[in-house]
């Protein structure tokens, strides 16, 4: 970066390109970019739809004491008569077996035709094993003849931690179900619908 123009070795004029300010500026720029760098490659998303207003408050009894803007929800047909995955959680400040507050205590599966849900896993097994069992059960159902509907509703307790809900969601997705909907937790459920 330094040029020397010499004239027959006598005297000589040095025309140096001073790099220092340029380097300083480059370092400042680099510092700025390092500080504002945000590696977002690991972040993904799960897309969802919310029921349109036309499908709200069209069916279902409404309690007299229900707030006026709390409608009953009439589900679109594709979300009716589907498999239900029910996740019960350990309540706040309590423990069940090895599970603590916010962890799933029981995972149940309810077929549309069955009157009662069937327990798939509870605190006797580890959560990983329980979720694997849920996936295999769901796969079995999907392979049954006449199993045309590939929809699932997840009904989780309000105390369940969000990370466990995502794990249940993952288990359903791995089993091959495409349309997975979330149902309001029992305490938040409006009268007459989900």
């Amino acid at each position: 970066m330094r040029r020397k123009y010499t004239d027959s070795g006598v005297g000589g004029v040095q025309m140096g390109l001073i790099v220092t300010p340029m380097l300083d500026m480059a370092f400042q720029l680099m510092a700025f970019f390092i500080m504002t760098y945000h590696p977002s490659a690991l972040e993904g998303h799960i897309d969802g739809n919310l029921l349109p207003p036309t499908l709200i408050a069209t069916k279902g009894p409404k309690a007299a004491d229900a707030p006026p803007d709390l409608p009953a929800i009439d589900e679109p047909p594709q979300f009716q008569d589907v498999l239900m995955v029910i996740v019960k959680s350990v309540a706040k400040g309590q423990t069940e077996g090895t599970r603590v507050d916010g962890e799933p205590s029981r995972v149940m599966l309810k077929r549309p035709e069955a009157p009662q849900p069937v327990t798939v896993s509870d605190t006797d097994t580890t959560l990983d094993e329980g979720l694997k069992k849920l996936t295999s059960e769901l796969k079995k159902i999907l392979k049954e003849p006449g199993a045309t509907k590939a929809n699932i509703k997840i009904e989780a307790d309000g105390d369940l931690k969000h990370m466990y809900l995502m794990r249940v969601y993952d288990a359903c997705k791995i089993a091959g179900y495409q349309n997975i909907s979330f149902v309001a937790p029992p305490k938040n459920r409006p009268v007459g619908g989900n």
Partner: protein
Amino acid sequence: MAASLGGGGSSNELDINLTPLLDVVLQLIMFFMITVNFVRVDQFDDRVALPVAQSAVPLDATAEEWIFLNLNSEGKLVGNLDTLTLDTPEKLKAHLMREKESLENVARAKGKAGDIKIVVVLRADKNCRYSEVWQVVDSCQRAGFRRWQLRVMTKPA
């Protein structure tokens, strides 16, 4: 950046060659400029630790407008909503309705016609409760939003 050794007489100049250093620095700058991802304060909040969902899909930008909601581990909305008191679903719904209207007006002012595609992006902490997540989603639904996204990590950080 030149260091001269010896005193007087014949000057021996020791130059540090800065060219390779400058090259590397400029390359690094190029890299950061290309990969830079400027995010708004509400789009990224360090206080929110997202849960992992392997079935999540990479981010896309199909929507016209976005509303970001960051829910911390205690179930409170943080980020640019820190200053607002949105402690009840009704207040949140009212706030979201105002936001929606404002975004629609801005989009219309830009010449967009028809239905404006607004997506609510919910960044919920992995330790918050499902009831808290549901309350936010429910408020969005009541505010008239039709699409939402749940942000997760595709791999553990």
